[in-house]
């Protein structure tokens, strides 16, 4: 579901409106993260408290965003659900970034058979789209959050490792690497101390964009009922819960998580692309 950064560049060529959009988005990201961290104190009701007499009630004083078909407060589920909805993609991003950077640096730095082995393996992983790999893993290990996170981490790994590899390859030819070598620094030392900090901004920008895609994939899994366990508040699962109420002409409890997902993903994409653009402008190739 993701695409290599090099192709997406050029979204906001630093127009003033672009910078304004970026500020809005990074503020939104910060707010969502804060809500997720402090969720238990912010939620007005117990997200799993069922009150069937109140089912499908519209927005009101005690339930700001209404009540779903099972009589649960939508706002509380949204707030608590931010935790699982962000924690999963965070796991995917951290996993794919750490492993991808290690593999990318190793294959660019050592070249030869290490490179071809690692490149072939990541090509094979490319053949499995993230969501399909995650569904396969869930089919085997059953529902839950951990298995899909590991599967998606593996699926996103090639995007990071390829990017890192090509970045390190160009970085390797720079004079400073040679200078360090003459000073007697070891390969590992040069790679960790000098090359890695130079490629880090681009890789982090890609990882920020990956976060958004991981959120999409994990929410999709929960929507299919293959992600988080039942009853856990999660945005994807909330969309699924709200689907039946749509037929009864009450779309609110499905729309609220939908909007939350779209806004969060868009915000992460804009922030990631802005960072990537900034790095690209700083170093004209």
């Amino acid at each position, binding site marked *: 579901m993701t695409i290599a950064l090099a192709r997406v560049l050029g979204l*906001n060529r630093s127009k003033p409106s672009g910078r304004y959009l970026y500020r809005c988005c990074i503020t939104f990201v910060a707010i969502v993260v804060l809500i997720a961290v402090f969720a238990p104190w912010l939620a007005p009701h117990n997200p799993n408290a069922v009150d069937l007499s109140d089912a499908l009630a519209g927005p009101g004083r005690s339930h700001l965003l209404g009540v779903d078909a099972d009589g649960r407060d939508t706002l509380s589920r949204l707030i608590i659900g931010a935790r699982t909805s962000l924690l999963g993609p965070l796991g995917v991003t951290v996993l794919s970034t750490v492993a991808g950077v290690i593999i990318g640096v190793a294959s660019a730095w050592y070249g030869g058979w290490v490179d071809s082995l690692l490149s072939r393996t990541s090509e094979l992983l490319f053949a499995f789209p993230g969501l399909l790999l995650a569904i396969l893993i869930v089919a085997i290990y059953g529902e839950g959050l951990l298995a899909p996170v590991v599967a998606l981490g593996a699926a996103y790994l090639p995007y990071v490792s390829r990017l890192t590899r090509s970045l390190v390859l160009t970085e390797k030819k720079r004079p400073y690497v040679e200078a360090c070598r003459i000073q007697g620094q070891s390969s590992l030392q040069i790679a960790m101390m000098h090359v890695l900090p130079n490629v880090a901004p681009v890789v982090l920008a890609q990882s920020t964009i990956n976060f958004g895609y991981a959120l999409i994939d994990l929410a999709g899994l929960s929507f299919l009922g293959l992600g988080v366990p039942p009853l856990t508040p999660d945005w994807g699962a909330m969309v699924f819960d709200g689907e039946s109420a749509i037929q009864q002409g009450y779309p609110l409890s499905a*729309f609220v998580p939908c909007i939350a997902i779209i806004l969060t993903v868009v915000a992460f994409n804009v922030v990631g692309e802005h960072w990537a653009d900034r790095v690209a402008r700083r170093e004209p190739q």
Partner: protein
Amino acid sequence: MILTLLVASFVIFGCMYLAPGNPVSFLLSGRAANPANMQVLDAEYHLNEPFIEQYARWLGQVLHGNLGRSIEYRSSVDSLLAQRLPNTLLLVAMSLVIVLVAGLALGWLSAIRGGRTDGTILVATTVAVGTPSFVAAIILQAIFAVKLGWLPAGGTGTGFPQLAEHLILPAIALSLYLIGLLARVTRSAMLEVMEEEHVTVARSRGVPERTVVWRHVFRNSLVTVLTMSGLIISTLVVCTVLVEDAFSVNGIGSLLDLSTTTKDFPVVQAISLIFITGFMVVNFAVDLLLPVVDPRVTLGERNDAA
């Protein structure tokens, strides 16, 4: 490619083999069984043979077009898929047309018009790229099917005209994300080409602007679009799982979801294999087509460039 496919099939089969749940116990679904019956079942599904033998048997049958027997439906996987494949294929084909037409047109407009048109399209595509297909499905369903009643909310109907009508909303939901992606890629590719010298030369020689854009800019940017087609196809196919589920379309995507929950391994294996074979064939075809479209690219170069 054949090697990659073989490895992929091995991975798929190996995963299913390692799975903790025993299909036989699921087949019996809690009923007590005497050991003799268990052995009959084991023999019928070849569950007691060594792993390599099972894999070789499965692969041999797959190559002969026999994808095994579904444990849940007690019928051959082939016939299960044959019923559903046309629905999914039509859905993917409709989405592909929508994606190509809308994506290229929006990207074109955005690059050529600039200004306010560009800004509006950029905002729209940014939102589209952040919209998962199932979210789009739910919103479209609520607005156009339930609220306005213009189109059916789900199912497939009977006969081809009804099927096509039922698939309009799913196809749009499936395309939305890719329209945004394609429009943005087309836009940046066209802007990049427009800065090249041959475009300036053509303009200075008095070639009409329309011809310049069509022949020198758009056709050159298609190379970039072509390298993306593998991604477009794989995203379309995988997201059918979500969209078919949302609109209860009877296709192989929703079958994959269903058989995953019921641990119907032969079906999961077969569908994953079909999906992955499809992606690989598309990627291979793109690799072959690239040198034809752009003679500067030699075969096998794309992997290094990407």
